[in-house]
């Protein structure tokens, strides 16, 4: 009887397309918004993840997220290095400065100061220039999106000069970097070079990046550092989630995205539910006939579930396909780069679509279950 259920479903073209459209729209809205939400929130901590060569971050104990770390005294670096289990520890600066480019307009940029010797925290992938050139005077590496932001529609040109806080800076490389939460250019220079670019601060180091001795866990060594120095020492993963949690709890982003995602769900339930219910109502006479002919309730429920799941699967597939196309199309746009369809979003929305079609079919099932088969003898 499964093919009968499918033929009944697609037989009414208008309702069938209405149902599929409802589920497709809901899927697109939910999966696109969930993915953008995850991508944007992830950007708040993307610079933490970009540091691939240190597993422990040490900072002022009051730090709640990546963007508000006060400076640490230079002596703290030595104290961290003195903790048993620490293989190495290096200074790291992260701050926001003003850059003056050819246009004369000052632009805010994110500046990261890397340890002069080890270059821990340096970008992993350069698309122009060499990392070793960062050791040259005034050398700065900028991320691709940042370069396009500062010098729009211009080809990449190494050796390009500009000013940071009225001090000369030279582009020696262009790299790939995860986009930050605010779409500012990300620039990398040596820690000692930052002393010239950020002259107003007494202490520049706001993080100490550390690595553990082989065989020791980052969590264990972090606790030791915290105990012995009084500083906040946490693993990279921990710091990442601290920053994310701060973003979620102190901004309106989750609420706004949540409303849109909920809207997608509600629209899906409303459109699919109403159309599916109408579809069942219009077919009650036929369900009654089948019941009279000896189709039991379990089989009828199976038919309705099959119809609902078919619509759900088709709408879900189309919706996810549309979302994927959206991200493919927008991937080349600088400020949208890095946003992509997350498999977790697909799985979550898949669950939501299952709930939508279940709710949509619930009323229909109830109607058919309690349908008196004698209805078939009541004329038209």
């Amino acid at each position: 009887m499964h093919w009968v259920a499918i033929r009944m479903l697609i037989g009414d073209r208008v309702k069938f397309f209405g149902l599929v459209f409802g589920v497709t729209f809901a899927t697109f809205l939910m999966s696109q918004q969930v993915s953008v939400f995850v991508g944007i929130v992830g950007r708040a901590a993307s610079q933490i993840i970009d540091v691939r060569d240190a597993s422990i971050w040490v900072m002022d104990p009051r730090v709640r997220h990546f963007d508000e770390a006060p400076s640490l005294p230079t002596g703290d670096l030595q104290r961290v290095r003195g903790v048993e289990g620490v293989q190495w520890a290096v200074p790291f600066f992260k701050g926001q400065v003003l850059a003056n480019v050819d246009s004369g307009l000052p632009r805010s940029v994110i500046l990261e100061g890397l340890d002069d010797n080890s270059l821990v925290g340096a970008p992993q992938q350069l698309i122009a220039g060499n990392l070793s050139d960062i050791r040259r005077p005034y050398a700065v590496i900028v991320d691709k999106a940042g370069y396009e932001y500062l010098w729009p529609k211009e080809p990449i040109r190494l050796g390009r000069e500009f000013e940071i806080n009225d001090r000369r800076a030279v582009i020696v490389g262009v790299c790939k970097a995860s986009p930050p939460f605010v779409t500012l250019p990300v620039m990398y220079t040596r820690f000692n070079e930052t002393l010239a670019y950020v002259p107003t601060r007494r202490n520049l180091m706001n993080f100490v990046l550390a690595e553990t001795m082989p065989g020791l866990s980052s969590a264990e060594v972090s606790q030791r550092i915290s105990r012995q120095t009084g500083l906040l020492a946490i693993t990279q993963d921990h710091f990442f989630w601290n920053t994310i949690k701060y973003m979620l709890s102190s901004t309106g982003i989750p609420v706004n995205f949540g409303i849109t995602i909920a809207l997608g769900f509600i629209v899906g339930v409303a459109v699919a539910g109403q159309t599916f219910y109408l579809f069942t109502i219009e077919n009650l006479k036929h369900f009654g006939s089948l019941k009279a002919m000896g189709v039991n309730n379990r089989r009828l429920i199976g038919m309705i579930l099959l119809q609902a799941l078919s619509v759900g699967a088709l709408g879900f597939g189309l919706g996810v396909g549309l979302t994927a196309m959206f991200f493919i199309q927008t991937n080349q746009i600088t400020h949208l780069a890095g946003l992509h369809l997350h498999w977790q979003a697909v799985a979550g929305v898949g669950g939501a679509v299952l709930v939508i079609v279940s709710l949509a079919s619930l009323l229909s099932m109830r109607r058919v279950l309690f349908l008196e088969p004698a209805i078939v003898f009541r004329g038209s």
Partner: protein
Amino acid sequence: MESAIGSSLLAPMTRGFDSPPPEPKGALEVQPAIRCRGLAKSFGTGETRVHALRGVNLEIMPGSITLLVGPSGCGKTTLISIIAGLLDPTEGSLEVLGHDLISLPAGRLVDFRAKNLGFVFQQYNLLPPLTAAENACLPLLVAGVPRRTALAAARSALARVGLEDRAHSLPSQLSGGQQQRVAIARALVHRPRLLVCDEPTAALDAQSGQTVLELFSEVAVEPDRAVIIVTHDNRILHYGQRIVYMTDGRVDRIESKG
């Protein structure tokens, strides 16, 4: 004439529901297909209570067409609904094809209907997206017959009602009379022992109605099958071997031919 494929396929289904009741030893007399005793049905409660049937006593024999006639609201539809196992009576006893339908558990009642009953409805009730053959094979699919086999039997049944060339037509491509013939093919495809028809000519013009009734006489009547037709249509009364007149929820009189 029934095709070989149809008869070989459907033979097991004609044996009825599970095990048929044993025939009385040494008796050649035909047992009634339906036996109603004091059948009553009321709807609602208190002041709004409506008595649709008020103690119906009726026996219907196989091998003939029984017409159930009477004015609107006399209880015809309620009576066939109960006989078909689609509605529970309020009082009385009912034996259909040797089975006490009232005491039959719900699940077994559904199986009983699937195996023993064929239905023809006033509005045909064909599924619009299915072709004539697909509609006609539905009772076999319900009984678990594989689709290909069921379709072959359905084409054979359509041939019997003169629609072999319309097997692939959708209901919307058929006239009212043709749709009713598809419905008859559907009702007979699994060779039920009881055929219940509700106003089968009501939606048809006189010519189509006559054709449909002639068809009933030709293909529906078999020695082991009872055919009950509810009708308002006085033009078709001569097709019935037995006419049961109902008034106000009771059997008023019964006319038998021959």
